[in-house]
């Protein structure tokens, strides 16, 4: 006879232990998630706080006399002529006019350096857009120099004694005069999103790096996705099971573990030196990164294809679908969400990759915003690296801002991934 009572007792006794284990595991899991989330929160909020000043820009309003005689141009001048005119002089004239007492050479230098070096180009572009300004006197706003910017934002403390302050008393006096006159204001820094890189922190923008990253990722995606998916489908569905295929499989897995800088060296040797593709260009960067992401996407795609239930294949084959039709009508669509997830992970990896791109010259200082995949460019993580490496104070906040842009880029990519997955994941 089975003693049911004693069995019930045994089960009851073990039950307590089992529930305790479950509770413990749940608590540990929750703790891990919390810790991970906390670190993320600290990281992101730290970067955000540091980056915020980069989105504000100090502007100085000056009364500019656009004297046609001094500038040597008029409203009918050609674009080239206007571009050659000396706008710097107009700005300096305006500054001198406002502070007529400044006479000494060193003091003049302080005076002229209130506005950014980029101010003359700002003025030039304004004139090019509005030729009617020529011959008139206008109140116009210019980007302030990075030191002025730092002072206005409070990064440089005015109360510190003069010897320990980057801005000396004389220049401070000038700035405070301008402030009293209401000629200094803080505006949203749109130019951060529309300018390329610069040696001057106040005019350096992220657009060059954003476009560089976009072009590079575009090349990477176009090169990797078709190749990786084709390779995964072939290996999973069509390849004979033999030594050769095992060998290929091992090598793909090995490729995924190769340090990324090796791909950079390969890119330098093969694509730049041998095929003579342009240096520093997204096309080469994209190819190098696609070599790097290829194994990731192949491996993810293969496991997605493997996860498609065999009954689906049998259903199609049983109806007389060819192997090709079975794969492309049924297996591939069913595996697509998984393949897309793998692809986005690979692309996110590529977005954050720095080392191989250093090797192919994408670390060069490039002011122009790239217009195609063959133009010299840099990418977001390298922009972060370059700015972090710059001595000027103003680049500190720019570095954090660039990191923030990079993170936003990643979030956008993940959002696309989730959207695509939801779209194709009709779990019927």
């Amino acid at each position, binding site marked *: 006879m089975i003693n049911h009572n004693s069995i019930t007792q045994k089960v009851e006794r073990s039950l307590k232990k089992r529930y305790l284990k479950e509770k413990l595991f749940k608590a540990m899991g929750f703790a891990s998630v919390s810790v991970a989330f906390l670190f993320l929160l600290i990281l992101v909020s730290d970067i955000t706080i540091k980056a915020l000043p980069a989105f504000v820009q100090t502007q100085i309003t000056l009364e500019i006399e656009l004297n046609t005689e001094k500038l040597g141009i008029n409203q009918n001048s050609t674009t080239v002529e206007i571009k050659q005119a000396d706008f710097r002089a107009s700005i300096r004239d305006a500054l001198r006019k406002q502070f007529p007492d400044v006479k000494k050479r060193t003091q003049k230098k302080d005076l002229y350096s209130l506005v950014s070096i980029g101010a003359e180009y700002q003025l030039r572009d304004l004139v090019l857009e509005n030729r009617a300004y020529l011959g008139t006197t206008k109140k116009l706003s210019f980007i302030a120099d990075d030191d002025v910017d730092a002072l206005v934002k409070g990064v440089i403390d005015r109360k510190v004694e003069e010897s320990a302050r980057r801005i000396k008393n004389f220049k401070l006096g000038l700035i405070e005069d301008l402030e009293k006159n209401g000629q200094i204001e803080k505006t949203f820094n749109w130019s951060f999103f529309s300018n390329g890189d610069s040696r001057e922190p106040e005019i350096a923008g992220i657009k060059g790096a954003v476009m560089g990253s976009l072009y590079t990722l575009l090349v990477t995606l176009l090169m990797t996705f078709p190749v990786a998916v084709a390779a995964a489908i072939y290996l999973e569905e069509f390849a004979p099971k033999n030594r050769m295929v095992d060998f290929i499989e091992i090598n793909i897995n090995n490729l995924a573990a190769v340090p990324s800088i090796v791909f950079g060296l390969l890119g330098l040797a093969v694509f730049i030196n041998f095929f003579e593709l342009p240096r520093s260009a997204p096309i080469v960067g994209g190819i190098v990164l696609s070599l790097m992401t290829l194994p990731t996407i192949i491996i993810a795609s293969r496991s997605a294809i493997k996860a498609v239930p065999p009954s689906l294949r049998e259903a199609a084959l049983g109806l*007389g*679908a060819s192997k090709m039709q079975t794969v492309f*009508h049924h297996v591939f669509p069913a595996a697509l969400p998984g393949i897309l997830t793998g692809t986005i992970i690979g692309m996110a990896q590529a977005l954050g990759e720095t080392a191989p791109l250093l090797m192919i010259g994408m670390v060069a200082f490039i002011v122009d915003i790239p217009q195609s995949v063959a133009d010299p460019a840099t990418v977001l993580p390298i922009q972060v690296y370059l700015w972090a490496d710059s001595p000027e104070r103003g680049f500190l906040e720019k570095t954090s801002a660039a990191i923030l842009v990079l993170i936003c880029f990643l979030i956008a990519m993940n959002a696309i991934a989730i959207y695509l997955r939801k779209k194709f994941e009709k779990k019927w």
Partner: protein
Amino acid sequence: MSNQTDKATLASMHADHGTTVGQPFCDNAKLSTRNVDVYYADNQAIHDVSLDIGRNEVIALIGPSGCGKSTYLRCLNRMNDTIDICKVTGQLLLDGQNIYAKNQDPVLLRARVGMVFQKPNPFPKSIYDNVAYGPRIHGLTSNKAELDDLVEESLIKAGLFKEVKDRLEAPGTGLSGGQQQRLCIARTIAVQPEVILMDEPASALDPIATAIIEELISELRKNYTIVIVTHSMQQAARVSQRTAYFHLGKLIEVGETNQIFTNPKHELTEKYITGRFG
């Protein structure tokens, strides 16, 4: 006692075809198989099976679990090709043509020999697309109206049309288990194969759904040849004309369904149908 000797003589009559007793052969064979052996790697799952399947007949394959019914069935439309370790030897003919010949295209073969699987496996598509898939890939219809008709006709034949006619665009996987199985049958007959292989089509169904499918099989018999694997002897008795009993990979006995169930000649068959094992 005399019964015993009867069995012995019958067994010797078919000595060249293993131990099969009864009438494994017929004159008007649609499918004809001789000395079929099937191996999964080194493991032999089918031993020397020889069996004919007559035109427009329903033949039931019965036997204990693991005896090789599914394996044998899957040889008939080369579904075993999809299993790498599976090897089939022997002669299998469809209308006198070798199924396993080098020049026999398995895709064409499967269009002629359709299959309904043990577990319903509709595509994750709409009900309409499920049924239309076969005709589409084979180019059986020339326009949308024809395809619509074919889909409707197939669903009617499978006894599903009334239940789904208002939601043909709804996902096929959203149907109940029994409805899904009938959808799979509709999908198979939409291709208008000559032979339909059914692997325990009613194993997951309630008595009502089972009755619908059994009725359907009797109906389909007019136009198709049907091989059905079943664990239910009542079902075999209701739908089939002949019954084949498999045991440990061997074909033990084949005969008129009535005779198999009332007067089995082999003692293994007798034991199985009287429920002494299996």
